[in-house]
């Protein structure tokens, strides 16, 4: 049983731990649609250079990731994979929903094959609006997430109810 879960860790230590989580968000390279390219710009374009913020886009496998940016349209066919990959990430994990499609279906709100928002299958921490959001908008979302991590209650995050599908 983790000490953190019981909430017994002294304050400065939890702050330090939060700080490290805040500045080390390994983000999972996974794009779904057009937004993925803007996410790619944020990750790989020297103009935005997300690495500055401590968001490291190294992992290609969910096992080493802390953050996943759901960037783009989640289709009904894709949804199980999204869920599966989210499951496979180790806790604590964070999700940014990027773009209208991921937020709630966006331009395909009336399509027969598109899931209306990724928050129907996985919990989302930050919603970034746009279609596609500018890379800076994603950066803003990340900064917002970092602020959130900075003051989050670790015990709660650790204990959070697991989401079960099917």
């Amino acid at each position, binding site marked *: 049983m983790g000490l953190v879960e019981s909430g017994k860790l002294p304050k400065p230590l939890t702050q330090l731990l939060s700080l490290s989580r805040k500045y080390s968000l390994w983000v999972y390279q996974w794009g779904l649609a057009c937004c993925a390219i803007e996410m790619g710009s944020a990750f790989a374009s020297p103009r935005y250079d997300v690495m500055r913020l401590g968001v490291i886009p190294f992992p290609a496998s969910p096992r080493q990731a802390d953050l996943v940016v759901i960037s783009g349209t989640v289709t*009904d*066919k894709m949804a199980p994979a999204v869920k599966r990959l989210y499951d496979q990430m180790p806790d604590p994990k964070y999700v940014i929903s990027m773009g209208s499609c991921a937020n709630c*279906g966006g331009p395909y*709100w*009336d*399509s*027969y*094959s598109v899931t*209306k928002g990724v928050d129907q299958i996985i919990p989302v921490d930050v919603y970034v609006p746009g279609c596609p959001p500018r890379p800076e908008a994603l950066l803003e979302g990340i900064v917002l997430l970092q602020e959130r991590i900075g003051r989050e209650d670790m015990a709660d995050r650790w204990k959070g109810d697991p989401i079960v599908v099917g």
Partner: protein
Amino acid sequence: MRTWLTAGRVIRLSSADTPTTESSEDVVEAVRDERREALAERLTTVLGDAVVETHIRPGDDLWVRVNREAWAEVAEASRNRLGLRFFDFLSAIDWLPSPFGRDMDAQEDLDAGASSSEPAPIVTGYAGGDTRFQLLARLFDIDEHIGVTFKADLPDEDLSAPTWTGTFLGAEWHERETWEMFGISFTGNRNLVHLYLPGAFEGNPLRKDFPLLARRVKPWPGIVDVEPMPGADEEADGDEAGAS
């Protein structure tokens, strides 16, 4: 100024000799389109009875409606004997007028919905047609820069056609797509499985009678929220009337 390497064949400059063969812009005025007429002629001679009807929009395109039974031979002959070697696409059209209109909750669409109780007459496009479903395919001749759009009627009770995969390898995916979207099967294509949709998806989305549920469920924000008031509305109404 080109300092980089050239590789491959030396290629003509486009502006130097823009091919005279393609003359779409020049013949806009012309009522007749000799090249397409000649092609239509050749098609008719090669395919014989299989050609049901042809339609030419001068300077634009050639439509040929063929027999469903001859569908495979059409491809074979076009590719091997007529030089139409480039496979553009293969799909289908459902000519049934949509029973749901634009599927908007708007007043005008509700009217369209109302009229759908008695099926509207089916009106087909160029080169005619007798049935609700029509196959649609397009081939192209890269050397002559001329293309043909083929159509074939499919009777409602037997939505199937011979496959093109024997002639055009790329037709496999297109046929799968058509099968998935319209429920048209292709004899000879053994790989008719879902291409786009999850395996258990039911229905054929591109059929006109496939409803888009979200559009029917969600209240249309503009209409619902305004309480219509008696009395005339000036400028806005005029626009709306036009917009419908």
